[in-house]
């Protein structure tokens, strides 16, 4: 039991920190003076990051173990997603300090909710039991609804919260029905025991397939997978930009964490061949995301469709997991690269849009004169999202495509060709932003103020976007260490 307390330490720190953050918010009502809620939020996240990294580097967790009788996995996969969640919430916190500078809002509660949302992701990443998965998914959704509607005076933010809530409740209702079917087939909710039960008594194929499709409704909603993506453009547009950044990275990563765990450990391909289904969904997701992104004029909507497209590439990696051992590390590497790239892009969008009071791409015209550093960084973020060197996105995409080709499966090969065509399509709308920033004449030319904190965030994400490619070794080995998974006692 002594060990389990250490294994649980990131969650304990986050839970206590989140509750304490509510009081810190109460104590620092004044907007002037030291920004206690922000600093406290960052301290809590950093404190939770230390034991998480320690567990991953200690090497003990790579083989995988579990606490609480197998419902809470302590393995590389969980640690990886915890690290991604903690880092991305940290960056979102920094973006928030700038975004909410001139907006009246409940500050203490906002940062407490961010911490709780991170707690939801960290527990979700470690959940190895359907009850835990359902509870943590609902926890994450509930927190996200509140955060999406945080700008109460803004009708678009209200719309975002209500749409997200309605869509999310239906998706989780369908998912819990699928979970109940699996429980009915196996008599257990633990995904390791589910796997062992199915190996002894194979279930009826059609019934299990139905359950898997229903599970995918809940997971697919979190990762914005077509056809469960309709909420994402409206929510991304209406939610406060830092929250959009959180949804597009932390929340999406959480969806992939649970998807990977359930399909790799619980319902593996030996039990039900889901690779074909995921491949079809991957092709549809990336194609819809990339095609619909082209006509978008609002940069947040464009990034929403772009993130749907990114989910499609990641699903290609998930499908390749059925055939190739390097698929999982490459998916993780892609998620790591995508985290910094997308957060960097949203940092630029947040900084610019609060100052020019517009989210339209046409208002980014002439940005190279008005905010040169941000414009240059944005070019690299767009290149990285498109997967063009010299950026991290290239490495991620290269590894995923390599895993798909290495598997030797002809369907995966065909899907890789679809993905490459989609990449070429995506270059068009990513470079459209660059075209506006560099080559379209601006109506106004006065420079845009760049506060130090945003320079730091954009500079840091920019540096990571380059470093992950240039100095790839440690990141690749981290992805390999992290792909260790708890598969039973």
């Amino acid at each position: 039991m002594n060990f389990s307390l250490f294994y649980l330490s990131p969650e304990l720190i986050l839970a206590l920190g989140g509750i304490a953050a509510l009081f810190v918010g109460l104590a620092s009502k004044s907007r002037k003076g030291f920004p206690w809620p922000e600093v406290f939020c960052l301290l809590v996240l950093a404190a939770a990051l230390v034991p998480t990294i320690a567990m991953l580097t200690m090497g003990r967790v790579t083989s995988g173990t579990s606490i609480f009788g197998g419902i809470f996995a302590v393995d590389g996969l969980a640690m990886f997603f915890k690290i991604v969640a903690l880092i991305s919430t940290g960056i979102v916190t920094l973006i928030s300090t700038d975004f909410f500078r001139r907006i009246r809002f409940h500050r203490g509660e906002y940062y407490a909710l961010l911490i709780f949302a991170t707690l939801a992701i960290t527990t979700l990443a470690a959940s190895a039991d359907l009850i835990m998965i359902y509870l943590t998914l609902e926890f994450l959704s509930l927190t996200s609804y509140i955060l999406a509607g945080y700008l109460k005076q803004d009708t678009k933010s209200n719309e975002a919260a209500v749409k997200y809530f309605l869509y999310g409740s239906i998706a989780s209702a369908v998912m819990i029905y699928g979970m109940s079917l699996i429980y009915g087939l196996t008599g257990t909710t633990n995904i390791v025991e589910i796997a062992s039960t199915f190996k002894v008594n194979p279930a009826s194929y059609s019934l299990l397939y139905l359950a898997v499709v229903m599970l995918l409704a809940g997971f697919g909603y979190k990762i914005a997978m077509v056809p469960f993506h309709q909420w994402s453009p409206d929510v991304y547009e209406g939610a406060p930009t830092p929250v959009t950044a959180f949804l597009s990275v932390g929340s999406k990563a959480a969806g992939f964490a649970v998807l990977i765990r359930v399909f790799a450990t619980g319902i593996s391909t030996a039990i039900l061949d889901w690779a074909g289904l995921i491949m079809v969904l991957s092709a549809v997701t990336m194609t819809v995301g990339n095609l619909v992104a082209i006509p978008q004029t609002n940069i947040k909507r464009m990034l929403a469709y772009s993130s749907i497209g990114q989910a499609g590439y990641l699903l290609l990696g998930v499908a390749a997991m059925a055939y190739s051992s390097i698929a999982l590390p490459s998916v993780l590497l892609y998620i790591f690269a995508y985290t910094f790239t997308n957060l960097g892009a949203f940092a630029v969008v947040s900084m610019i849009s609060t100052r020019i009071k517009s989210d339209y791409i046409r208002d980014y015209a002439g940005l190279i004169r008005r905010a040169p550093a941000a414009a240059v960084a944005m070019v690299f973020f767009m290149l990285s999202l498109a997967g063009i060197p010299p950026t991290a996105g290239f490495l991620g995409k290269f590894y995923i495509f390599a895993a798909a080709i290495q598997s030797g499966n002809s369907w995966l090969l065909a899907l890789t060709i679809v993905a490459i065509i989609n990449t070429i399509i995506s270059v068009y709308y990513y470079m459209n932003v660059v075209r506006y920033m560099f080559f379209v004449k601006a109506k106004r030319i006065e420079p845009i103020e760049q506060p130090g904190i945003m320079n730091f965030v954009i500079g840091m994400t920019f540096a990571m976007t380059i470093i992950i490619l240039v100095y790839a070794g440690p990141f690749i080995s981290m992805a390999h260490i992290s792909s260790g998974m708890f598969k039973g006692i």
Partner: protein
Amino acid sequence: MPFDLHSINLFDMGKQFVFTLTLQKISFLAVAFMTFASAVAVVTMKNIFHSLLFLVLTFLGVAGIYLLLSADFLAAVQVLVYIGAITVLIMFALMLTSKLMAKRVSQTMEQWIVALPVTLGILVVLIRLVVLNPWGMKAAPAGPTTGIIGTSLMTKYLLPFELASIVLLVAVVGAILLAKEDKSDDPS
């Protein structure tokens, strides 16, 4: 002679068996019909308050089904939480919004023509799959479940049990945040 006795016994047992099955069947059919009919009424009533009253009946029907499945604790929770708390909460919300109380509104919109075949299709697929396939699971022996549930909540499922309290905390904070009227002199 032994043969006759045997057959009589079998006949008696069979008769008893048929009888108990029918009793269970009758109560199931009654409860299921009540649940289904009131659920239909919930989504068709023009007055939203009437919908709510039928919702109580639906929840009661679901509690009845839990009882028939010998899930006693679940049935009690269903009555306490759903009928006792949730519907009363909705009732308060309705009574406080006078606009909704008297209004007669249609619950269908023009998209029902598309929605009906889709939902019916899903229903047919679900029924076919769930009824025609073997489940392989045997029902647990009937008996009181409260103690078992309590033990597992305090041992194996301690973590989700504790986590649920944080979920509730977040829900409370969020409800206050979203419902609170922001005054212009609000300091934060």
